[in-house]
């Protein structure tokens, strides 16, 4: 009887395989963002002076603050898994909610940052934008596309983690079956890594 039960468990569960599947998916994300980083590096190489001038218009303080927020959200995500491994469901849910809140804080910051730029007339298609040197135009186009795509990932990650929180509350994710939470965590940490590179490349090249 017990062997049968084990066999069933083995058919339906392969945690290592699930995690490896998630990693394979993350490699496709690497291609997606990698392509944009290729664009960035070539255009920066061709328009070095313009990129430096354009980067001065970004607010380093806001960027640094957002970096800290995202790094902290990665911490709470990792802690939520440890809490669940130690069978502390409440603490795990608390850490997951912290992660979601920090993600919201990141997006609110990003919203105000974008809005300030847009109020200053810096957005693709505006008169001021069209009057810029081509290097500065490229910088801001890449800024909007890359931070925009990243923000989209933050939103997707937030939704994913919210679903995981619901699963945890309803005991779909438990202390001995939490590979879903781990996969969501992997996604979240990837979003963090992308920001780790975006931040110095856009904010700190003055």
């Amino acid at each position: 009887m017990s062997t049968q039960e084990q066999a069933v468990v083995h058919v339906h569960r392969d945690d290592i395989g699930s995690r490896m599947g998630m990693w394979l998916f993350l490699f496709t994300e690497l291609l997606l963002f990698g392509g944009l980083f290729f664009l960035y590096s070539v255009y920066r190489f061709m328009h070095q002076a313009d990129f430096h001038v354009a980067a001065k218009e970004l607010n380093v303080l806001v960027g640094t603050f957002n970096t800290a927020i995202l790094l902290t959200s990665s911490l709470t995500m990792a802690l939520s898994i440890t809490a669940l491994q130690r069978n502390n469901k409440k603490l795990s849910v608390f850490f997951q909610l912290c992660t979601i809140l920090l993600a919201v804080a990141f997006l609110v910051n990003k919203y105000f940052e974008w809005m300030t730029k847009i109020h200053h007339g810096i957005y693709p298609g505006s008169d001021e934008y069209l009057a810029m040197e081509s290097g500065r135009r490229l910088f801001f186009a890449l800024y909007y596309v890359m931070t925009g795509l990243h923000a989209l990932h933050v939103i997707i990650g937030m939704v994913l983690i919210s679903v995981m929180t619901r699963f945890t509350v309803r005991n779909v994710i438990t202390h001995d079956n939490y590979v879903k939470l781990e996969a969501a965590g992997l996604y979240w940490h990837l979003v963090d890594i992308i920001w780790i590179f975006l931040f110095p490349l856009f904010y700190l090249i003055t």
Partner: protein
Amino acid sequence: MDKHHSNIEHAHSYTIYIWVWISLLALTGVTVAVAGINFGAFTIAAALIIASVKSYLVLTIFMHLRLEMKAFRVFVAVALLFVIISFTLLFADYSFLSLR
């Protein structure tokens, strides 16, 4: 019975995460500070090296690569190797373009 609880060996303590987090924040501080100094071409190199160290910490500790089977680390290494190859070829091309 413990076999399908293989996840247990996957556990990090709370403290190591907090140490990694402190290191990540400290490295962010270093990047911002270093960006203020003009090292010329080294400035971008410094920023990328620090970002790589930060990513290494996130990959190994937060993403549990250190605790995974070796195959995971090989996968990631191969993926990163190809990104590096692409960048090298890209710049081999573009640095010659500027000489023309």
